[in-house]
Each structure stands twice: as C-alpha cells, then as structure tokens.
C-alpha cells in the first residue's frame, strides 16, 4: 500500500481496529459533539507504478484536488474526508485484494480507481459482494458496466465511444480509405474492432487492418502492408511505447498521411518517445480547454502537481471524487452515517449517485452531463463528449485540433 503523506487536509491512513476502538471509546467518553458516526473514508485503488502508472497517478492527483477542496471548505457537515490509497500495479489479483481490504478492513464508503481494464474489472466482483459503490475511471472495455451492475459505475468513456467518435470524425473530414493498426493486447484489438464496426455504419471502408506484438522492435512488415493498401488516413490503437514505434516507423518510411492515435497518445510517454514523429497526430480526448472551469482546474493542478497537458485522466479522478462527495452529502447517506450504519450508507451512496445522475463535471463540451440512471451505470453520453486534440512541438504539447487542414491528401 502506498500511504500518501502531504500537508493538505487529505488524510491517508489505514488505522488498525484497535486504534479505531480506542478512538471510539475516547470520543464516546468525551461526549464530543464533533463525533458523527461512520468516518467519511474513501479508497483510491489504481495502478500507480505499473505500465499504466501515468493514468493512475494523474487521476489520483485530480482526485486529491477534489477532496482537498471539500476539506478546505470545512468538510461535509463539519467532518473531513479521509483517503486510503493503494497501488494495484496493473495486477488484477492484487487490485482485487486491495478492494476487499477497502471494503472489509478500512470501512470505506466507496472505492474509486481503475484506469487499465483488467484490474478495473477485478474490482467489480468485490464491489458486488461487499455492496460498496465503485466508481471506475478510464477502463474502456465495453461490457464492464453492462447490467446487472449493482454497485459499480464508470466515469470514463468506453472503447466503443472512442471508436464512434473517431469514425464520425473520419466520415466528417471526408476520408474514404482507412487503415487501422493496433497492438495485440485487448485494448488494441477491441478498439480496432469497434472502430471498424463504427466505420462500416458510417459507410467508410477499412482498406487494411494490421496487428503487431507490443514488444516487436521492428514494425516494418505491418507498416509496409499499410502503405501498400494506399489508405488516406491511418488510425493507431497502441499502448505508449509501441505507439511511439508505430509513429516513428511511419515517419521513417516517409508516410506522412493524416494519423489518429487512440487515447494512449494523451500520455506524455508516447509523445516523448515519438518526438516529432507524433506532431500533427489527432487524439480523442474528453476535455475541452475552452471551458473556463476546465482551465481553472488545470491551473490548480499545475500549482499543486506541476504542469499537465489537458487530458481526461486528472479530470476523471476529479469528477469521480466530486460525484462521490456530492453523494455523501445526500440526506439519506448522512442519516445512515449518523446511525453508524456503514452498509446502509453504502447503499444510500449508490442510490444518491443514481439520483444525481445528470452531474455536470469537467468532461465533455460545455453543458454536457453524465447520464447515470437506474439502468445505466455508464456515465459518459454518446454526444457532445469528445474533443479532439492535436500533438504539437515535437510531442510536448496537446493543442486544439486544426480540422480545416486534417483532410484527405493533407
């Protein structure tokens, strides 16, 4: 477990039962008015040291900003929110163990986390078994929130939504011959299939689809076949390092066609490794920097954690925390908390998340809201959610996409 110790009001701890008992006795004997039953504790479980560490770290930073904001404002009904954080290292089994610990030992009211799909999926049975609300982040595998989803919700877009957004852009920009290239991991293959299906619906043919091994040092065979198919746009579904290799090989082979890279290009790593080979690439994102509230959030982020490019990952952590915090302020939740009924409080939080299902967060275009409901635990809607960004300055920055020049033959 990683224990974060910082000077902000976010307390990260994992007290032993004996300490909790002592604390209870002391508070009870004092008859303190400050005592408000069940502590407001939330668990953050995500990969912060494995292959998807970029996403987990950024989301956790966003999450901490939201918790700090509420604690700085006096907490919820005078009670501060405590955070217990675990690093699941992209290991599904370890992640599930930590989720169980959150539910059983830590007495958390909810679990937030889950950027890579496999560990995110591993926490779903835990959430269902312990009946603890679980807000997963960018895990994109489509069926994760298919019903029944008794206690888990998804804050980030699913792969099919990325695919639909990419297909819609390709059709709108007038491309007629699409080449898809993806790694052989589930993210790559699922996304490519979803995009192929979405393009078919839009009436745009896929002229070639190539898959490569994530650890191959030479991707010339796949890129050579792409070139021979004579596409007018190339769409890549990679992880970070292999995505850079695809872009470098395209550059090396003198292929300067318009390129779209999946959300993995939002991560600094891919762009740093690709350098100028990533310039001009379009990336689907869910953060609109034209929105003042989004800009303000990234200013806060920069002040506290250093500069971050405007990507969905910090925002996902922030929005998930805000939704959870709004839910625990709900009267039904407060009543259960005052009665020290943890199980009832968790159920009430789940119900409050559904009741507040049209929450307006920082993802999407201005005015777009999440769409959680009794039969829909996947938040992002299909419309007004995606904002394409473009890579610039040798991969260093993400800027607003120049769609006027992103055309066939450009």
């Amino acid at each position, binding site marked *: 477990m990683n224990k974060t110790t910082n000077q902000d009001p976010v307390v990260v701890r994992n007290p032993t039962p004996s300490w909790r008992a002592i604390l209870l006795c002391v508070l009870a004997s004092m008859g303190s008015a400050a005592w408000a039953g069940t502590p407001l504790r939330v668990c953050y479980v995500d990969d*912060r*040291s*494995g*292959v998807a*560490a*970029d996403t987990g*770290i950024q989301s956790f930073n966003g999450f901490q900003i939201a918790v700090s904001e509420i604690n700085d404002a006096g907490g919820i009904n005078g009670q501060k929110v405590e955070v217990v954080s675990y690093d699941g290292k992209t290991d599904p089994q370890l992640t599930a163990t930590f989720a169980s610990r959150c539910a059983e030992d830590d007495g958390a009211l909810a679990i937030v986390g889950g950027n890579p799909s496999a560990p995110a999926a591993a926490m779903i049975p835990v959430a269902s078994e312990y009946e603890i609300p679980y807000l997963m982040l960018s895990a994109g595998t489509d069926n994760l929130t298919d019903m029944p989803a008794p206690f888990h919700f998804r804050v980030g877009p699913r792969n099919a939504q990325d695919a639909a957004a990419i297909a819609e852009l390709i059709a709108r920009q007038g491309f007629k011959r699409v080449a898809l290239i993806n790694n*052989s991991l589930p993210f790559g*293959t699922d996304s490519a299939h979803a995009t192929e299906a979405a393009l078919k619906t839009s009436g745009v043919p896929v002229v070639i689809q*190539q*898959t*490569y*091994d994530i*650890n*191959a*040092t*030479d*991707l*010339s*065979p*796949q890129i*050579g*076949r792409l070139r021979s198919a004579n596409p007018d746009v190339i769409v890549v579904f990679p992880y*970070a*390092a292999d995505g*850079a*290799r695809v872009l*470098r090989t395209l550059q*090396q*082979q*003198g292929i300067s066609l318009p390129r779209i890279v999946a959300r993995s290009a939002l991560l600094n*790593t891919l762009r*740093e*490794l690709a350098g100028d080979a990533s310039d001009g690439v379009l990336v689907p994102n869910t953060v609109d920097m034209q929105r003042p509230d989004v800009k303000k959030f990234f200013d806060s982020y920069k002040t506290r954690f250093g500069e971050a490019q405007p990507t969905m990952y910090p925002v996902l952590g922030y929005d998930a925390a805000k939704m959870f915090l709004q839910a625990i302020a709900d009267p039904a939740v407060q009543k259960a908390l005052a009665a020290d009924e943890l199980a009832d409080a968790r159920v009430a939080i789940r119900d409050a998340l559904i009741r507040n299902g049209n929450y307006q967060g920082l993802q999407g275009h201005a005015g777009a809201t999440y769409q959680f409901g009794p039969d829909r635990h996947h938040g992002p809607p299909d419309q007004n959610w995606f904002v394409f960004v473009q890579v610039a300055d040798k991969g260093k920055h993400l800027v607003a996409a120049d769609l006027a020049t992103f055309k066939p033959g450009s």
Partner: protein
Amino acid sequence: MEQIGVILLAGLTNGSVYGLVGLSISLIYGTNRVINFAQGEFVMLGVMSAILFMVTLHLPTWAAIGAILVVVVLAALVLELGVYQPLVRRGAAPLTIMIGTLAAAIIATGIALLIWGPLQLAVPNVFSLQALNLGPLMTNAQQLAIIGVFAGLLLLTWYLMYRTSFGLCIRATGVNPRIASLMGIRADRVVRFGFVFSALISGMVGILIGPLLGGQVGMGVTLTVKGFMAAILGGLGSPFAAAAGGVMIAVVEALVAGYGSSLYAEPIIFSLILAILFFRPYGLLGDFEAGRR
C-alpha cells in the same frame, strides 16, 4: 520479393534481441544447469542505466556505455555471490536456485522502481534512428547495430567456447562440475564468468533496444520469457542453439504478422515449439550440441 525481404529483416532484427537474451540464459545454464529468471532484469538495468548515465548525468556516449556495463557486471556479481553461491553452499536443488533468481528479479525491479519510478522513459539512441535504405529495404542504424552486435557476440562466444582453453573449461563444467573440479578446473570461477559474461551481453542488448522500446522497470519479464522460449526451442545448454531459436521465433512472428496477424503469432509459435519438442525434446539443435561435446 520486397515483402519477404522486409519480413526477414524485421525477423532478423527482433530475432537478434531474442537470440541475445536466449544466448545469455543459455550461457549461465551451460555452466551450472540453472535457468536465470533475472536475465531480463540485466537488460532492464542496461536500459535504465542508459537513462541515468546519458540523460541524468550527461556522460559522453562511450563513457556512459562503459558505466552501464559496469552496473550490469556488478548486478551479476551480486546475483552470483548473494543468491546463487549461498544457495549452492546450502545444497539447494537447481529448482530452488531458479526460484532464488526469480526472487532476485522481483527485488531488482522494486529497487529500480525506487530509482527510476514507474513511468515509461525515453532512452537516448547510440546510433541514428534516421531511415536508411538497403536497396528496397528500409531500416535504421540502431536496428542494424542490433544485428551487428548479435553477429559479433555470437562470433566472440564461439571463439571463446571452442578456440580457447578457458572455453574447454566452461564446457567441461557444464557437462559435470564435480568431475571438472577433480580435473583441476575452478568450477566456481567458470560459473561466475557465466553470470558476468551473460550480464554483459544483456547490458549491451539494453543499450541497443532502449531507444526502440523505451525504458520501464517492469520490462525484464517479457524479455526473460522470450529468451527462455528461444533457448527451449533452439536447445537449452547451447548458446548458439538458443540464439538460433530466437531468430526462428522472430522470423515466424514476422511471417505471421506480414501475411496474417500478430494476434495469432504467439499461439502459433507455442504450437510450433510444442510440436518440435515432441520430436526433438532437447530442442532443434540440442542433439547437435550434445554431439559436439
């Protein structure tokens, strides 16, 4: 024709990496009959040390390469003196020693995590990454260097093993360390040489593949698996067979990718390995090497 050329070049490039890791695993196995599950971590150390010496400390390239090789040699000595020798002295079975090397790999990854953090990092290139035309084929100097180093190290290993008296000692120790000791061979020194030489090879692999794969502290496991597959396919115990196994795996991967989809490459390769092992349980060239001994 051009397509097959591209595929074979890609296979040779990737195969050189797998082959070098397989050769490293096989070198240690050849001296003590233990599979070193920390072999990929030597590569990882090479990659991450390149970041330390070239990016953080801004050492000149050749000084950085020297420093990287010193780091991997020290790591090899720590593994040999801190894990292998204590377990051997206590009479541990080879399987126990293998688990010891696995534990060392996990510890090494943890230490690297503390030093370099969890993120995938860019590694400076020693050779140019600019496109280079070889007739109809296109590659770059870094990829050609991988093939060149592979060929050079194969030649060096062959010379060492078959043209020097020390090579004879290595082979004798591999066949039976006890009898080799009775013949006056310092088997412990031969084993130590195996660790150090294989770590040097892996460190060089790290320097060469870092700019292409990027550096991440968890990258060692996959490389160990590929190297192990190469060694099993070619014939464990023979460095050259392991190297050939690596090239074969990568060429099959490239053929499957070029004419089909990489999605099916691993199942096809594992089926192939299984089929070959049914008929040649010691690997493709295992018997040949056994005969040479």
